[in-house]
Every structure is written in structure tokens, then in C-alpha cells.
């Protein structure tokens, strides 16, 4: 071959030089568990559906969401969103408004009339679900998707359980609840209302069911003995909320005192205010720090003019005079009586001291163990009796709708495994995507969108919904505040910052891969990954 003067070799590409052999550490793409997903009691893939929302594909987002939870519009209103509490963005500015976006997606789906995925192919198996609250409805939905026939029984005249009979309409409009329940029923559920199950074994055997899910909730308002005159009006918060939901509100008078410090106490006080009480006072034996109610509920209640009597117990109630005893907290934080008393005028007293479960239906099922008033269950949600599962407020739990929905899902999967004779799946969890793994330089500053609230005056007198939803523009804004912790969102950073062009871009939604022939293992990609989705692991040499 003819060569130019003094040239003895053909020109070659540096591709011949496999610099990957220099490497002592190799980058690998990982998916970590975002803290929101980790915290979600219903096991939602929150980061996943925010990701789908970001380009505006709300249907894909909603479909991913309902894989785990068939109640986005309800959740977007009543969930206490532990996801936001654990959101990594808190350490940057403010948590992503996950709850608001969930509500937007839920409402959007109702508007568009999207239906839930159809029931799975018929398995020929039948499951009895007792109780049509969040746990029962969630279990029903997931069982239907797995192809099982479901008989859903409730003693109330309508479906929804505590979502209907415990949560006031100003927090959860009934049209929203009805729409999301109707979608589940439309999957082909055998619904039996106004029917109280009093012997679970008999009901199961007579109906020929393969498994049972008990989700009877905690419907009995706890009472304490308070010396009271005949004319004194005392009722419990559960009954009050139930009657309001039935459109049969009791007469409470002008001055209403609520005794208790949980969310139900706040619901009762806010409901009393809407029923015409001019003074709604909450009496609680500890202080604000120790109140079990959620902070934002308390804020909303205070905004509406509810007043608080901290460190007080109700001693007696005679005519329209309530005697309170002042308390003090001892070193362990327990309230101790002080012997100091004071009077408080009251037309009625509402007890919100917790709820108990009516478990008479398992009297004839001795293997089902009850401890401290609730049913003991395994991690699979199965009780001591094979084939009987339980969840929701009837088992040891924080007693929120979201937890109950999570129980329903888990129980449905366990029931499916049980009736097909398999071991329940125990899906592994990814490692947590912690804040220190993020490179927050790449995220723009973006404060959170506040959901508008009804004018105070209006919400004191009506049961209209207090918190309004986001519109499409600010829902999208909010979704895009997600940091995508621990999961690649295709920002092209690794592809761009590699000095050795050793990252291959695979195209939309296909992410990237490393070209280990040339990757020298410098680790810039891992350092500059905004969401911490690249690990450097030692190379075996």
C-alpha cells in the first residue's frame, strides 16, 4: 500500500484502546425506594405516578395509582399523607404536595369517567368480605382483580363504612365517595347491605366461601362514667357523626363540649359548629404536643373558632354546668389530677375517647385470637383461624383509612395465595433513597402550591368541602417538584457528564446503560446524578 512519506502505520481510532480496564470501581444504575413510597400505608408507587403526571399523562398516572389504591379522590382528601412527612424535598424547601396531586388525579378520573381495570379471569373461588369500609372495599377490589368472586356484606344501608359514617362531608363530599365506590362495585361485586353477620363460621359455611376477610372496623364509641344529671345531654362522637351522615343530626344546643384529643374529637367539634353551636370547646387531658390528632386538622379547627381546654378532664355534668378538673403532666408525661376545679357551661357533651370493635361475630371461632379488643393477625393478615383474615380498625393499627386500604390489599394477596395453595409473595424492598444521595444543585427552587381554603365564615356554617383542589396547571407544577428520589427520571446528566462517552442513551423511557469497555470508573456520573440512582461498586480485579 502507498503511504505518505514517513508514515508507516494507518491511522486508527482510539476505540482500540479499551480504557475500561483501568477501572477499580464500576457505576451501576439502581432503583432505590423513595421515602414517600416507603411511608405509604397503602403501598402506592407515589414517585411512579408523579413521574407519569409530569408530562401530563394523567391517565397513565391514575392507572398506576389504582394498581394499589382504588380511592385516589378519597385519599386526596382524607389521607394524613405520611408520604409528605417523609418527603426528601422537606430538606430543600417544602414537601411535594403529593396529597393534592393525588386528589387532582382522582377528581380528573371521576370527571373523565375512567373505569378501574376489569376483574380478572374467574378463578371459581368465592370470598366473603365482612364490612364495606376502606379495608373491605380495598380487599374486594384486589380480590376481583385476582379473579375471585366477592360477597361484600355490611350492616349499614350504604357502602363506605367510616368513610361515610365517620368522616364529615366537609372533608369528604359524598359524591366523590359514591363515585369511587361505584367503580369498585361495577367490577361485579355481590353486595349485601343491612345485614349483620353474627356468626362468621356459620356465614362462611352456609355460603360456601373459600376464605373470609373481616373488616368490621371500630364502630363503638368508648364511654366513661361521668356523674351526670338526668337532663344532661351526653352522646358519643361516633353516633353523632353517624347520625349527621344519615341526615338525622341530633340537637346539641349552643354550647357543645367535646371530650377527647384525637381526630374524631376535632371532627365532632367542627361538625357541632356546623350544626349551629356558637361555642365548640374541646377538653383534653394532656397538652397540644401530646395530642394524637393530626396537626393540620387542629389548625383547621382552630381557624374555625374551635377553642381548646388543655390539661383538663370532665369531672361531672349537671344540668348545663360541666365541672372540669385541671391536670398537670408528670415527669413521664402522664396527666395527674391537681384537685383544682372549674365550671364550664355546656348544653351537651360529646365523648370522643376512642372506639371499640364489635367482635361478637367471632364468638364461635375460638382460634381467632382477640387481644386488647382487637384481632391478632399474622403479617399476611390471617387470623389464628386458617382462611379467616382480618384488617382495618379491627386489628392492631393506627386506624386510618389509608392503613385500612393497605390491609385490604395485603389481605387480598394473601387470600389469593391461600386459596390457590401457594406461599404468599414477600416482595423484597429496595434500599431507601435518602436525601444525602441526591445532588440537589440540579433542582430549581420551587415553593409548594397551597390549596385554597374555603372562606372561614362559609365553612363554619355549611358542610361544603373546606379544602379545594388544584387545577391542572398547579397540579402539574406540584408533580414536577418531585425529586424522583432514587429512580432515574432521564435528565441525561450521566450521559452528558461522562468524560469518556461511556454512557449509552437508550431512548425515551428506556434509560441508559454503561459501556464498560470504556468506562474508567471516575464516578462523575454518580456524583452528578440528581436523584441518586447510580451506585459505585468495587470492581473485582
Amino acid at each position, binding site marked *: 500500500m502507498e503511504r505518505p512519506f514517513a508514515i508507516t*502505520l*494507518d*491511522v*486508527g*481510532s*482510539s*476505540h*482500540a*484502546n*479499551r*480504557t475500561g480496564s*483501568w477501572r477499580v470501581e464500576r457505576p451501576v444504575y439502581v432503583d432505590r425506594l423513595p421515602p414517600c413510597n416507603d411511608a405509604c400505608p397503602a403501598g402506592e408507587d407515589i414517585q411512579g405516578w408523579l413521574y407519569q403526571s*409530569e*408530562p*401530563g399523562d394523567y391517565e397513565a398516572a391514575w392507572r398506576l395509582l389504582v394498581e394499589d389504591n382504588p380511592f385516589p379522590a378519597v385519599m386526596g382528601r382524607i389521607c394524613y399523607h405520611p408520604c409528605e412527612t417523609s418527603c426528601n424535598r422537606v430538606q430543600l424547601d417544602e414537601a411535594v404536595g403529593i396529597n393534592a396531586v393525588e386528589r387532582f388525579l382522582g377528581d380528573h378520573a371521576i370527571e373523565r369517567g375512567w373505569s378501574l381495570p376489569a376483574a380478572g379471569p374467574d378463578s371459581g373461588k368465592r370470598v366473603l368480605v365482612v364490612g364495606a369500609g376502606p379495608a373491605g372495599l380495598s380487599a374486594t377490589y384486589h380480590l376481583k382483580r385476582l379473579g375471585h368472586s366477592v360477597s361484600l356484606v355490611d350492616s349499614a344501608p350504604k357502602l363506605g363504612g367510616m368513610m361515610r359514617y365517620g368522616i364529615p362531608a366537609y372533608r369528604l363530599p359524598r359524591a366523590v365517595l359514591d363515585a369511587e365506590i361505584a367503580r369498585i362495585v361495577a367490577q361485579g361485586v355481590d353486595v349485601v347491605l343491612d345485614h349483620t353477620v353474627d356468626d362468621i363460621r356459620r356465614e362462611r359455611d352456609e355460603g360456601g366461601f373459600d376464605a373470609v376477610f373481616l373488616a368490621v372496623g371500630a364502630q363503638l364509641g368508648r364511654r366513661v362514667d361521668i356523674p351526670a344529671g338526668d337532663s344532661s345531654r351526653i352522646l358519643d362522637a361516633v353516633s353523632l357523626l353517624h347520625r349527621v351522615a344519615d341526615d338525622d343530626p341530633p340537637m346539641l344546643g349552643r354550647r357543645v363540649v367535646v371530650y377527647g384529643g384525637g381526630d374524631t374529637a376535632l371532627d365532632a367539634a367542627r361538625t357541632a359548629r356546623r350544626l349551629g353551636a356558637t361555642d365548640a370547646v374541646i377538653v383534653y387531658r394532656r397538652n397540644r404536643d401530646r395530642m394524637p390528632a393530626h396537626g393540620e386538622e387542629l389548625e383547621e379547627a382552630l381557624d374555625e373558632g374551635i377553642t381548646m381546654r388543655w390539661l383538663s378532664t370532665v369531672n361531672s355534668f349537671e344540668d348545663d354546668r360541666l365541672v372540669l378538673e385541671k391536670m398537670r403532666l408528670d415527669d413521664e408525661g402522664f396527666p395527674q389530677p391537681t384537685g383544682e376545679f372549674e365550671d364550664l357551661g355546656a348544653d351537651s357533651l360529646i365523648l370522643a375517647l376512642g372506639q371499640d370493635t364489635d367482635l361478637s361475630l367471632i364468638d364461635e371461632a375460638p382460634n381467632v385470637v382477640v387481644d386488647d379488643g382487637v384481632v391478632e393477625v399474622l403479617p399476611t393478615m390471617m387470623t389464628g383461624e386458617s382462611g379467616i383474615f382480618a384488617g382495618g380498625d379491627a386489628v392492631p393499627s393506627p386506624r386510618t383509612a389509608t392503613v385500612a386500604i393497605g390491609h385490604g390489599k395485603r389481605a387480598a394477596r394473601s387470600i389469593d395465595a391461600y386459596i390457590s395453595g401457594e406461599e404468599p409473595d414477600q416482595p423484597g424492598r429496595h434500599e431507601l433513597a435518602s436525601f444525602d444521595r441526591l445532588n440537589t*444543585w*440540579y*433542582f*430549581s*427552587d*420551587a415553593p409548594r402550591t397551597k390549596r385554597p381554603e374555603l372562606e372561614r365564615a362559609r365553612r363554619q356554617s355549611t358542610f361544603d368541602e373546606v379544602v379545594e383542589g388544584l387545577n*391542572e*396547571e*398547579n397540579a*402539574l*407544577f406540584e408533580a*414536577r*417538584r*418531585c*425529586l*424522583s428520589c432514587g429512580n432515574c*427520571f*432521564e*435528565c*441525561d*446528566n450521566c*450521559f*452528558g*457528564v*461522562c*468524560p*469518556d*462517552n*461511556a454512557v449509552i*442513551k437508550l*431512548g*425515551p423511557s428506556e434509560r441508559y446503560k454503561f*459501556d464498560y*469497555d*470504556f468506562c*474508567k*470508573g*471516575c*464516578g*462523575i456520573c*454518580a*456524583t*452528578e446524578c*440528581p436523584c441518586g440512582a447510580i451506585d*459505585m461498586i468495587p470492581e473485582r480485579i
Partner: protein
Amino acid sequence: MTTQPIHFYQVGSFAVGNRLLDDDGRTVQSDPNRTNSLDSGHRACQGCGEALGARYAIDAAMRASQGRLVAVNATGCLEVFSTPYPETSWRIPWLHSLFGNAPAVATGVAAALKVKGRSDVRVVAQAGDGGTVDIGFGCLSGMFERNDDVLFICYDNEAYMNTGVQRSGATPPAARTATTEAIGSEAGNAFGQGKDLPRIAMAHDIPYVATATVADLHDLEDKVERAMQVHGARYLHILVPCPLGWGSASSDTIRVARLAKETGLFPVFEAVDGKVTGVSPIRHRTPVEEYLSIQGRYAHLFGKHPRTDIIARIQAMADRNITTYGLLAEEPADIDPKGVDV
């Protein structure tokens, strides 16, 4: 200048690309079909800032010139690691002659193309800081003075890295190099004015001068694009950290460059016809310690007997830059809540 409106995308305009951005908002580097002017297999160290900066700049110049580009290279790391005979990592027409004559060779290439009537082909010359501020300085000043139609890019890693980290005219005060050792009371490089080449270039009143870092790709690409839109002598000065010479972790190359800008030690600005027309404001103002302490070349300032006096002098340099160039944004970035396209 080079700022972009802040959108409420997850990553605003700071990441290389983003699936939510339309093509105009993405960088050249996010394009799977980018030129990769400097190809894989080059022998730069792990985490080399210069290799990164060169690909960023030349890929952008390739896009701006529709692929009609000739590059002239001075001797230095970039030349050595990209072209060990008979291999080359360059996927563009590329020439190397001597250490000191790259600006003159580029002038010649531009003149030859003019003679041949090839006004469509553009010329870029590139060199490290040694080839620019010291050895090639005479030729470069001549190229500026004649206003030859060349974009000259200096990849500044603040010393002669290729030959073993010797001090250059661009080495900053107090930095340890092989020739400015960390011994004695005034350890490291001496304090002085150094050679601030962007300002020297501006003094030639050439049409375009700009500085950039490998930490802000959008800004860097915008500046190359702008430089390519004008004819005449243009100068781009890119800060490219050197993990080997600076004693920083190979994974920290971009972080170090970002801190150089955020501390104010390396002002990022552009100048048209000898006048500063825009600066990249500091986003999170950072004390110089944070920049210095992650580099081995400043290790003698820390440890048991920290040299707070020297650190304070370096901080004063940063503060002077901040004042001189107005690097602190007066107003917070304009947040446009409608920055989402529904």
C-alpha cells in the same frame, strides 16, 4: 446573556437534558447523535475535566458550524492523550504542530480556507493554560491584534499537567505544584496578579470574549454558539478541573468547577467588543474553604495548623471578583408560575 427562564421542571435548566423539555431547551450533549468529537478510548485520567470540556465545546461548535469545522491543537494534555500515534480520538479534521504556535497555525488555516473560497468552514484553535497564557501567548496576542477569524479556546486547569504539574502563569496563589512546593512560610504559588487572560483578550477589543466552566453546560454551549455566530478573533476560557494536579477526587470534577464559580474565585461572564455584557450570578454563595478543602493542592492550608491568613487572602480575591463583576444577583431569579406548558 446566558440565563434561561426558570421552569418548574424537576431540574429547571441545570441538568444536561430533561424528557420534559422540548428539543430547543436541551443541550447538544443530551442528543444521542452528538458528534462525540473527542471519542472514547482517549487516555485522559479518570474524571478529566479537560476531556469533558473539549467534547462539550467542540460538539457545540460542530453543531453551530453544521459539521464544517477544523480544529488546531497546541501541545499539552489534550493533544497527548487524544493522539498517541497511530490512534486518534478526534472525529473531526484536527491538526497539531507545536506547543506555542497553535494561534498562528489556526490563522494560517483560516487564511488558506479564505483563499480557497471555503467561507463555510470554520476554524477553532485549542490549548491548555500553558499553551495559552505562557508559551503561545505571543502568537495569540498577534491573532487577536489581526482579528483573524478563529475561535480560540483555552482549557484552563491551572498548571502544566501533562509534564507533571508544573506552575503556569494561570496557577492560582497558594496552590501546590511540582515547582511551587508546599514548604516554607509562603507555601505554594506566590500571590500576584497572575495572567488574567480573559481580561487581556478584552483589552485587544476583539468581538467576543467569554469564560465558562464544565459545571454549567447550558452556559458553556450558549457561549460557543454565540462565539460561532461572529467572525473575527474570539476567545473562550473554560475552567477544567484536573483531579491529578489539583488533588481532588475524580468523581468531584464538576463539583470543584461549580464551587470555583459559586465562591466567586472564577467569575463566569461574557464580553462583547471589550465590554462585559453579562455575568452568571452566584446561585448559592459559598465560602472559599469549601472549594479549597477538597483539593490536595491546598492541603497545606488546613490540618493541624490551618493558615487562616492565607485562606482570608483567597477569600478577599473571591470577594473582589464578586464586586468587580457583580456576581450576586440583586433580585432573586424571576419565578414564573406559568413556566409549565399544560
